[in-house]
Each structure stands twice: as C-alpha cells, then as structure tokens.
C-alpha cells in the first residue's frame, strides 16, 4: 500500500471484503460504519434477500444478504462475518452482510477497468498488485428490482 500514498486526483478508496472466494471493493464514501455480526430480527413477508433489521445505536437498520441478492448460497455466519452499514442519501442506512473485511485500498482510475452489464452488481474491476477486486455498483445493490 505504501506506493499509493501519493494519491492522484481521480483515485478512490475502497474497502475490500470477501464474499465466497471473490474479493469485492466497496466505495468508502458510501460506508457509515462496519459492525460485528449481531442478532438480526427477522421481518416476516419481507423480500427474501432481506435478513431482517438490527439495532444500530438506537436506530433500526435493515440488513440485506448480498449473497442472496446475487443469487449465491445463503450466508453462513462466522467469526469474521461483518455487517457493512451503507449510508445512502435518499433511502437512509442499509446493512449488507459480508464474509470478511480485509483492508482499505486506494485505486486510481487507471487501475480500474470499467465494466457494465445488465443485471450485474459490478461496475468495474480494480487491479491491486496481484489481486483483482470487483467493484460493487452500490446503486445496483440498493435498487429494489429483483434481478432475475
């Protein structure tokens, strides 16, 4: 990371998380906080990918399983599981469950390869050393359409 200390104007910071075997990056400007796994209260009749709600310092925050949203296997909560609390201007706070939080990286625009595709939750792939990081399109995740 040391080589990235001098930031370029168009570089962004990402939090790198693990879901399954893949590494994903979440734009740090969307992130309010990261909390450990806690009791999630199930909400009946909610969309399937919503695990329920949690009490975050006195506020009710809905929690989404990004795995279910991406049609992956259901989450298995472990010691490394975390809930990343995203804060969105319009709709308020939303928690997403990830298997593990790894690090914070800074990617400049020339390290990011844009990609787009219908029904995809990824809007780019970042290269960080030897590793590839899929960058989440936060708006696509929040978007309430079920992607078939």
């Amino acid at each position, binding site marked *: 990371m040391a080589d990235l200390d001098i930031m370029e104007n168009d570089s962004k910071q990402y939090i790198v998380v693990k879901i399954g075997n893949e590494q994903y990056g979440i734009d740090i400007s969307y992130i309010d906080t990261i909390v450990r796994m806690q009791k999630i209260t199930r909400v009946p*009749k909610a969309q399937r990918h919503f695990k329920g709600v*949690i009490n975050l310092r006195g506020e009710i925050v809905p929690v989404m399983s990004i795995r279910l949203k991406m049609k992956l296997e259901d989450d298995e909560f472990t010691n490394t599981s975390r809930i990343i609390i995203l804060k969105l201007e319009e709709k308020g706070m*939303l928690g997403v469950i990830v298997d593990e939080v790894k690090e914070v990286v800074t990617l400049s625009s020339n390290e990011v390869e844009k990609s787009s595709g219908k029904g995809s939750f990824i809007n780019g792939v970042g290269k960080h050393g030897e590793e590839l990081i899929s960058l989440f399109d936060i708006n696509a995740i929040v978007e309430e359409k079920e992607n078939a």
Partner: protein
Amino acid sequence: MDVSQYLEIFIDETNEHVQTLSDCIMVLEKEPDNKDTINEVFRAAHSLKGMAGTMGFKRMQRLTHDMENVFQEVRSDKIKVNSAMIDLLFKCLDAIDGYLNNVKASSDEGTEDNEHIIKELNDFIAAANGTVQTEEKPVTPVEEKTENASGDADYLQIELNDSEKDAVKAAEEAGQKVYGITVNIQKDCLLKAARAFLVFKAVEEFGNIIVYRPSSQDIEDEKFDLTFSFYLVTEEEDFDKISHAAGTVSEIESVVGSLVSYADIAGAEKKEEVPVETVSKTEEITKTIQTAPAAPAQAATPAAKKQAAAKPVTGRTVRVDIEKLDALMNQVSELIIAKNSLVSISSSEAGAFQNQTFNEQIEYLERITTNLHESVMKVRMVPIESTVNKFPRMIRDLARKLNKKMELYMTGEETELDRTVVDQIGDPLQHLLRNSADHGLESNEVRIQRGKPEVGSIFLNAYQEGNNVIIKVGDDGNGIDVEAVKNKAIERGTITPEQAESMSQKEIINLLFLPSFSMAKQISDISGRGVGLDVVKSNIEQLGGDVEVQTVLGEGTTFTVRLPLTLAIIQALMVEIRDEKYAIALGSISNIESIPVNEIKYVEAKEVIHLRGNVIPIIRLDKILDIDDGQKDPENLTVVIVKKGDSLAGLVVDNLMGQQEIVIKSLGKYIDNNKIISGATILGDGEVALILDVNTLI
C-alpha cells in the same frame, strides 16, 4: 420604519382575521340580522385594515377599508345583507388571500389593485344608499383620514349615553370641570395602545376619565385608528397643563380639547341620532359607570392598568419550529429506551440490584418519563379546526358551482391531532367532501322525487376513540351503486367476471381506491379524473391511518378515516410467537382470552370463536408471520382480541410478555412487507421487536 420583524405576526394574524371574516360571513348569509356577527365582522375588517396600514401594504389597506365601509353600512342598518353582497365579500377575501400569498412569497403585497372589486364595493354602498351619502364615498380615504387626523377634534362628536351624561352632570354639580379631549397619534406609531395608556396615565394625575371613545377595552386592544377621545373630570382650571402633560408622551401628534358642559352635550344629542352600535360597544363601560357614577375612574383605572399588564400576554405563547419539537421528541424517545433498559435490568438481574429503593427509583423514573412524553406529545397536538374551518366556504362555493343545495355540518373541530397529521389531512378530507358534493348528493329535483329533503347534507364528524382519531365524512346522497362499480371494473378489465362473482360488497367498494378508477360519467373540474380516492388512501396510509367506506344505495355514503393520535410513542402489549417478539398497540386491543382449543368452530372453513354473543374470526399469527413450525396446539390458546371500528378478530399468540411503552421506529424504505409490520421498536435489552399493524390483519 422597518417592519420586517413583524411580518410573521402579520401573516399569522391576517390569516386568523380572514378566517374569522369567512366564518362570520357564512353566518351572516344565514342570519343577516345577527348583530353580534356583524360587529365581529366589522372588528375583524377593521383590524385587518389597521394591520395592513401599519405594514405599509396600501393596496390591501384600501381594499379592507372599503370592505369595512360596507360592514359599517350594514351595522348601521343602512344596507341589508343579501347574497350578491356575500358573493362580493368572498371575492374580497380571496383578493386579500392573494395579497397575503404575495406577502408570504416576497414580503410585498404585489401590484394587483383589485380595482373592480373596490369599484363593486363602492357601487354597492352607493346603490344601497342612493346618492345621499356621496360625500362619504372613499376613494383613497385612508390617506385622507390620517391627514385630517392631526387637527381633528373628535371629542365634539362624542355621543353620550344616559349614564355618561349623568356622570358629566354629577361632576358639574360637584363643581368640577369636564374637559373633552382628543388625542392624535403619529401615523407611524407601532404601539398605539401603549401610547394611549401613557396619555391616560398622564391626565389621570389631574382627575378621572369618565368617558372613552372608543371604549377603554378597544383602546387597550388597539382597536382604534390614530385618534381617541375621552372626557376628563378634574379640579384643574388650566387646560394647557393637561394638554401639555398628555402631549409629552412620545409619538403623540397633537392634543386638542376644551371645556364641555352638560348643556352642550344635551344639546348636541338632539342633532344626531345615536346609532345602535355605539351603545352596544360602550355597554361595558356603561355598566361600570352605573355602579359608581360619582367616581367612575375607579373602574377606569384598573382597566388601564390591566392594559399595561396585558402586553406580556403575547409572551405566554411561543412559536417553535416544528423541527425543534421533533428533536425534543427524539430525545424523549431515547430517554424512554434508556429507561426501558434500566427496567429490564432491574427485573432480570436478581441479587445485586434487588433492593427496594432501587425499584422505587425505577418506578419514579418511569412515571416521569411517561409524563414527560405526554407533555411533549401535547405540545405537538393542535385542534383539527385550523384545517377543517375552510370547508364550509368550500362547500358553499361547490353548491353554487354544481347548482345543488347542500349544507355542511361539522362536529368535533376541537379534536386534537399531532401537528404533522393535521397539516397533511386537509387534502384528503377536502377530496372526500368534494366527492360527496359532486358524486354523492343527487340533484335537487331527484332528491325531491325521492322524498328526501331538498337540501343535501354533508357531514364531517371528528372524535377520539382510544389511540385513534376518527374523522367521518359523508352525505345523505345516492350511495355507491355496487353493481355499477362491479360492471365498470369488469369493463375496464380490473377484475374478471368470475372474480366479480366471488367478491363481497366490501371488496368491490374497495376497488374505488385503486389508482385511476373513476366512476364519474363526466369529468368536471371538481372531480372525476380518477386521481382521487387512491391518492386519498395513500395519503392517509402515509400518516399511519386507514380509510373505510360504508354505503347504502339511496341513503348515502360515509368515509371513515382513522388516524393515529400520536406518531412516535405508544403503549403496547408485547407478545411472543415462538421465539419472536411482537408489539400490538394497546389502543386496538379489546381484551385477552384464554380459549380451550375445542371451542374453536368453523364458519366457511375458517376458524372462529364464539365469545359473549360475538363470532370472532381467529387469526393464527404464526401462519401469517411464516413461523408455523407445525407445533401442536396447547390445550388453551391465548387469544388477543383486537378491534378495528366494529370488527373484531382474535390473534393467537404463544405468550404474553406484558405492557410496555414503546418508541415507534420506521423500518426504512428498503423493506417491503405488505404493511403487516408498521414499524419496529427497541426493547430494554437492545433487542428489536416488530410492531404488528392490527388494521391490516382484520
């Protein structure tokens, strides 16, 4: 003079006065001879004029001045109230509203002169008076008046009633002097009442004031223009001393006066007839003087003192930004959550905390937080009056437009609701009323044919029921033709004929709440575009309420709007279903029963229980909430009987946890759950419990 700081007060007060005028004019339309109302109208118009003048809104002042002239004529019985006049007055009110909106938007009254209205007003006076009073015709009268004011000696025109004359006579007989004095205040004076008070104080050094024009009450309330007059009884020979004392009060333009004698007054009396209203206006003073004719000032002085004390009255109410109240409410919510967690610690952790003082203190804390919450809620509560009092006028206009005779009856305007709810309930209610007027009521001919009273009735009744406020809006018109709705729905493809067969009447009527479903054969500008009931419904649901329809074909329709009294904190019963905790609002719970399983009966393959003469459907919460794990029923079921209006339902729960004050939190915008869950709350131990919306279950 910079008056911008008064702008807000001006807007509020103008609103109030316009509303008063509107109400009074409605009354006048029905009772053209109601003197009290005429006086009230006059006062409101007068205050409006004064306020507009103070703020420098010349156009508005001119319009209100001419309105006032009309009222003046009515008051002195020179004009009879008729419907053309009422129409004209409403036009004036709309024009004033227009000015007011301009003022709100730009702090300026705008440039609309409303010449035609002013002309109509003047024509009206002229037509009614013939040409007798042409010299009184005010074109730009306000300016004239203020200009003239400086030299006026109005005291010469004072007409006295008998007791006042007696007082003058008595003073003369006692060898005292009576001076008639008129004081003119400077045009830009903002605190006229206070100046008048200072003048009175100054002259009362010399003697007693026996007559006030206008009355002392009106002077106190600043209900006078720039001049006021009074009679002073004194031993003082030199009038200059008195006029000098009065003249030293700042912002006084001039003080005019002279000695008056009883003979003058009695003589002047014959020249002019005493108008009726002068007497009524001074009645108050008459009474006080009658009781103590020789020393009338005893009554007058306390009145003047009261005026000094009256000033801080404005300070007893405080305007608070609703956001500040919200912040306060949030703090109280947090406090209650913290309190709940203390309560749960004290009840769960036996041992260390189990001592009596601790428990007592906890109970004390509970009481305080509950009271605090109630106080904060009350601060946010306002009567629905402010929203519904514009409806009579609206119905009147609709009656004209639709050419149907109708009458609006309202009750319960004093019912209080949370401020945010009151602000937003106006549109839905207005819509329902328009619906009643347009679709509900038949035309007058049809009504007569059907043997109904020719004049249709529309009603709006509001009252509190438990934790809800109910507002019923309805009419005695045609009712909803269920068959017609059904056919329309089939025609539009909303439902299939097969579906229609199996639908209950209620379900069919509920189709009316679907988006873009309009029954109107003709689109009018009043209703019929199909953006109606669905918007009403969604507006009301946004406020946490719901709306229902009852209708009898040929007899009328009633819409029942149910709104929660409070939005943030409620008393709730906590229940357990398997290992999940849910809250049910206490306000919707009727009672709790333990029912043996074998008492469950079946009606149309649905489970019901028979309880004290009621057949109550059973709702298995575990099934509804998708936690049915096939667990066998125990011998006795715990059933929470909930009510919504007249309908009851029994909710089967596993376990009761007790009553608790809960803070309602929204689930946010992400989760869509068919509205069964109306929100969530945080329990004492930090756990989240969901709040069941009983209204959607029944």
